């Protein structure tokens, strides 16, 4: 029996959609029993969400006021304590998971598989290295506890179960560390789909030439029901917010459709979009490397094409 503990990332009210993808990954492990752990000030709503993810056997909740904001230093000692009864501890490859899981691994003196993209057995996994320019297969020793962050672009979300899994409140002895304090979070909250889980993404590069010009992409995205992304060059230039960055050091995404406007296609950017089902590239430069990975390419001026798309899709 492999007992897999998944940390249930959430925003206080909803389970992050990345967790249903972690569950699919965990189900790939033979003879898996899957538990989601929810750390929250009030876990009720999130635990109910987690209990309906198909394939989940159990949800455990740890309630503590400090968990009103997710802090790795607060969660890690408690998650490490819970991990004693499990063979694998998984988290999503989001900034939350990337921050938390290595801290847990170190507390458990266990190795971490980062960006786990395929399960070959309970101890053997595939993961990308060198900005996804190589894939390596790694094997952990039998009997070793395995910590992993799951590359969410590599897995489909598990469905919804009609029979919710049991939810159990648990207490842990480990006190959360208090040397780290949450101050604030600023984000351009919007009604647009979440970039990491959106089916369609419209993305812009440096060729947009200003933050104002990004407005035409937002308009098109709203018409298409798409999320908006950006290349590192566009973010560095201040045209787009940091959370919009797609690529090796930004978000790795796998939408059904990725529309890249004025993005040349540096390898670090391509890393972030290789799992998109259809990539469309629009660029003035016919030699732009983005065309090497595009399923559909169009050479032309985005400032003419974006409004045309907007109009013709109407």
């Amino acid at each position, binding site marked *: 029996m492999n007992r897999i503990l998944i940390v249930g990332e959430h925003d206080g009210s909803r389970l992050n959609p990345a967790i249903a993808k972690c569950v699919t990954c965990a189900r790939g492990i033979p003879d898996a029993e899957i538990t989601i752990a929810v750390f929250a000030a009030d876990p009720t709503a999130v635990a109910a969400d987690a209990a309906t993810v198909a394939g989940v056997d159990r949800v455990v909740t740890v309630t503590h006021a400090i968990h009103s904001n997710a802090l790795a230093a607060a969660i890690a000692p408690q998650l490490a304590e819970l991990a004693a009864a499990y063979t694998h501890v998984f988290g999503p490859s989001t900034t939350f998971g990337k921050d938390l899981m290595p*801290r847990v691994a170190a507390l458990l003196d266990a190795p*971490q598989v980062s960006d786990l993209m395929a399960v070959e057995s309970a101890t053997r996994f595939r993961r990308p290295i*060198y900005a996804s320019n190589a894939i390596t297969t*790694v094997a952990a020793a039998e009997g070793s506890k395995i910590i992993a962050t799951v590359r969410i672009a590599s897995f489909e979300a598990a469905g919804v179960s009609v029979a919710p899994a049991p939810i159990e409140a648990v207490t842990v002895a480990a006190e959360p560390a208090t040397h780290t304090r949450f101050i604030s979070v600023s984000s351009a909250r919007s009604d647009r789909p979440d970039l990491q889980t959106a089916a369609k993404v419209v993305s812009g590069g440096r060729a947009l030439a200003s933050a104002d010009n990004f407005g035409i992409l937002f308009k098109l995205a709203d018409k298409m029901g798409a999320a908006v992304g950006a290349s590192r060059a566009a973010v560095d230039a201040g045209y787009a917010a940091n959370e919009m960055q797609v690529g090796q050091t930004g978000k790795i995404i796998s939408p059904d*459709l990725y529309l890249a406007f004025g993005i040349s296609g540096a390898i670090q950017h391509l890393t972030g979009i290789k799992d998109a089902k259809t*990539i469309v590239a629009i660029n003035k430069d016919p030699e732009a490397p983005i065309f090497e990975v595009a399923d559909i390419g*169009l050479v032309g001026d985005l400032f003419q094409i974006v409004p045309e798309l907007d109009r013709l899709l109407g």
Partner: protein
Amino acid sequence: MKRILVAIKRVVDYNVRIRVKPDGSGVITDGVKMSINPFDEIALEEALRLKEKGIVEEVLAVSIGTADCQQQLRTALAMGADRAILVQTDAVIEPLDAARIFRALCERETPLLAILGKQAIDDDCSQTGQMLAALWGRPQATFASKVEINGDVARVTREVDAGLETIEVDLPAVITTDLRLNEPRYVKLPDIMKAKKKPLDTLDPGALGVTPVERLKPVKFEPPPVRAKGVMVKDTQELIDALRRKGLA
């Protein structure tokens, strides 16, 4: 003396297009340009700026790896680090062992901050800083895009999926750097000459009580799957037609 410890990893330069060895035993690194991991350069730059503000007196650059890492440490010294330590080993060092080595050095050198890159662009693990923080029993502020030190706390702005998060951590602490924290300075020729006189000590991992362990055995390496060649369309209408055929518009 107040100091900052900065981690410097020698990696394949970010402009190099990586190729997997035909026998799948690794990636080709012979004759390939090597550099300081770009995120570590940002870590060093941040440490130097904090020193220039008078918050610390010394910047210590540390690398782990083969004797060749001295090149990257000399570059770090030329950028402005005061001294360097190479923990020399030919073994493959996994993040947990790197963290154990840094922990031993943090206990010895008692830095105010340990600043590391958020990830190395070779293995893309993004683990060492967080593991160091856990083993050292100190706070971590990962993916930092802004760092302010006020007495015995640091206020750090982090690049997270939702946007920008600000946290406060008690010092000493571990910080890992994101891209937009700063722009590293260029090294000037006279500084390269001066750097040759700065101290660069070499240590064995054993001297720090660490024996490297292989916990994750790399079984094989493969090139990534190649996407099938796409089609070019000539105008916006053709693009829409192509999307409609795929059921995407």
